[in-house]
């Protein structure tokens, strides 16, 4: 399959907890979805009931969902979207839930920052597809999220006190953009300061197969070169290599936890490549030397 993610994209997802694809979804689907959301009821391609898209039982195979809502089925069947989903959670993941996130005009405040669902200690992960069927301008206050926050074990809104975190991102994007997130990432809806309604449609998916080497691994050996000794200049030169990506901290990482976050990345990568000997620099190998 040509549309699977690359090793570099997978490493970035592991390190930062998201991948963003601007204007991925064609205009025809965006227009249909947006028109249906705005109109409500049974529209061309979507079933809207009480301002929400008709749902399915959690745990339903994704292939069985949206057959009655062709606009969303077309979105999920785009080769690029299928490739993203397959690379992260396999060929036929389970539908967990979906929701239209609606921000009305002239909001006075924004949603608190939070991690979705409840505290989640798994290594395997769910993904959330956040689909923006229309352009999001800066004043529309698109989704706010904190890169690299996905490994931090917090329970939902416990972090609401954190109004701002250095490096926080605000989704400003063209129509048809897809933001793909690890389930643990800290995020919140932005404040819509315009006269227009803002919509985002989210789908959460669960893996049904081991998340091992599901992406295009043809470049895995080339991109995973190491471990290199810490302070070896060569270890930091190649920004497309897995180990180099894992060594790059986010702006907000506490000084004493940057290396713990590298350990978190290494552990998830070990899970994804099915290789418990994988390391970046020597962070885990050192601790695993029991001699």
């Amino acid at each position: 399959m040509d549309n699977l993610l690359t090793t570099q994209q997978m490493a970035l997802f592991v390190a930062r907890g998201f991948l963003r694809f601007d204007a991925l979804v064609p205009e025809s689907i965006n227009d249909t979805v947006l028109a249906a959301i705005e109109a409500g009821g049974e529209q061309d391609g979507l079933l809207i009931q009480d301002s929400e898209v008709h749902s399915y039982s959690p745990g339903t195979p994704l292939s069985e969902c949206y057959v009655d809502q062709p606009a969303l089925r077309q979105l999920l069947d785009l080769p690029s979207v299928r490739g993203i989903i397959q690379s992260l959670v396999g060929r036929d993941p389970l539908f967990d839930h979906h929701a239209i996130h609606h921000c009305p005009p002239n909001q006075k405040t924004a949603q608190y920052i939070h991690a979705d669902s409840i505290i989640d200690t798994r290594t395997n992960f769910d993904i959330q597809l956040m689909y923006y069927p229309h352009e999001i301008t800066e004043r529309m206050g698109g989704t706010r999220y904190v890169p690299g926050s996905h490994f931090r074990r917090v329970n939902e809104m416990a972090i609401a006190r954190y109004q701002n975190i250095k490096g926080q991102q605000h989704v400003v994007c063209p129509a048809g953009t897809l933001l793909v997130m690890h389930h643990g990432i800290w995020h919140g809806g932005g404040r819509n300061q315009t006269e227009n309604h803002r919509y985002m449609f989210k789908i959460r998916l669960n893996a049904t197969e081991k998340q091992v080497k599901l992406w295009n691994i043809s470049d895995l050996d080339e991109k995973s070169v190491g471990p290199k000794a810490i302070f070896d200049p060569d270890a930091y030169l190649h920004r497309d290599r897995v180990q180099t990506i894992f060594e790059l901290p986010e702006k907000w990482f506490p000084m004493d936890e940057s290396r713990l976050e590298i350990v978190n990345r290494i552990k998830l990568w070990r899970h994804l490549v099915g290789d418990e000997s994988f390391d970046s620099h020597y962070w885990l190998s050192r601790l695993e030397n029991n001699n």
Partner: protein
Amino acid sequence: MKQRQIVMVLYSRSSALDSEVVGWATYDGTGKTFHHPGGQDEPPYNTGLEAMLDGWRVIQISQLVPPYPGTEYSTSFLPFEIVLEQLVEVE
């Protein structure tokens, strides 16, 4: 004259009060300003010490707590919190 409290919470990159601020929040007890989540991409002060030099009073800093056994490699909340206040006279 009555007094009201403005509370500012800073999160620094280390336990040192003069290390870089990476998270922040302000709650204004006078009701004159409102700080909504995500409303400010740059911190009001670069360090906790900078805020102190500007007149903010530190009322609490995080304790240094060793990790619980088994959680040594886990990360969670931002660990280094500095709570500061200003007392402001209101009508």
